[in-house]
């Protein structure tokens, strides 16, 4: 069963704009991770945020976590055509054992 749900399912923006994707989950977690996947290939790890953290940055990426609302958001600033991909959030469902539960993903298209 899917733990996370990403919103929106699909997003299309122009190069240079910001892209925001949201993820909601159902049970308590130890951490939440965001991954990127290009054209059905392997997943690339973007950011891990732990349950005691509220915000984390990595380059043009900003992730927030609200454990009271069981939600997270991924913001990509100044998007580029190369950011076109599917983005997934994944949670460990509280066990801290590495059994990741993924959502269905957000497909982002960045038009040049």
């Amino acid at each position, binding site marked *: *069963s*899917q733990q*996370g749900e990403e919103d929106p399912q699909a997003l299309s923006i122009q190069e240079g704009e910001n892209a925001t994707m949201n993820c909601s989950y159902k049970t308590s977690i*130890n*951490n939440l*991770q965001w*991954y990127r996947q290009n054209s*059905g*290939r*392997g*997943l*690339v*790890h973007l950011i*891990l945020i732990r349950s005691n953290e509220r915000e984390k940055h990595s380059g043009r990426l900003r992730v927030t976590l609200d454990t009271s609302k069981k939600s997270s958001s991924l913001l990509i600033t100044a998007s580029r055509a190369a950011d076109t991909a599917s983005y*997934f959030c*994944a949670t*460990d469902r509280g066990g*801290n*054992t*590495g*059994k*990741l*539960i*993924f*959502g*269905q*993903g957000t497909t982002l298209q960045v038009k040049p």
Partner: protein
Amino acid sequence: DAGVTQSPTHLIKTRGQQVTLRCSPKSGHDTVSWYQQALGQGPQFIFQYYEEEERQRGNFPDRFSGHQFPNYSSELNVNALLLGDSALYLCASSLDERGIFYEQYFGPGTRLTVT
């Protein structure tokens, strides 16, 4: 430093056959997890291997089995293939350090097509 590698890249099998997929973890990692990703879906956890034993398992039938070797590499075996087993199979490795979990690094995947 090599990342996670998987072989083969693509595979076509017939219903009822058996298949073995292979994974080598990132250097320094000791834990290997396998995921199945159907087209248009997020990955689903199959099982995880640590210290050569299956540590936890997702909701997959016994037709799915695995193995981890002393060098931490791993195999995923699927018996009696069904059409519904067609998917991208992803291997992920991580380091289990005194119960603290770190990021999982994924390989490029094996695309399995069952006809």
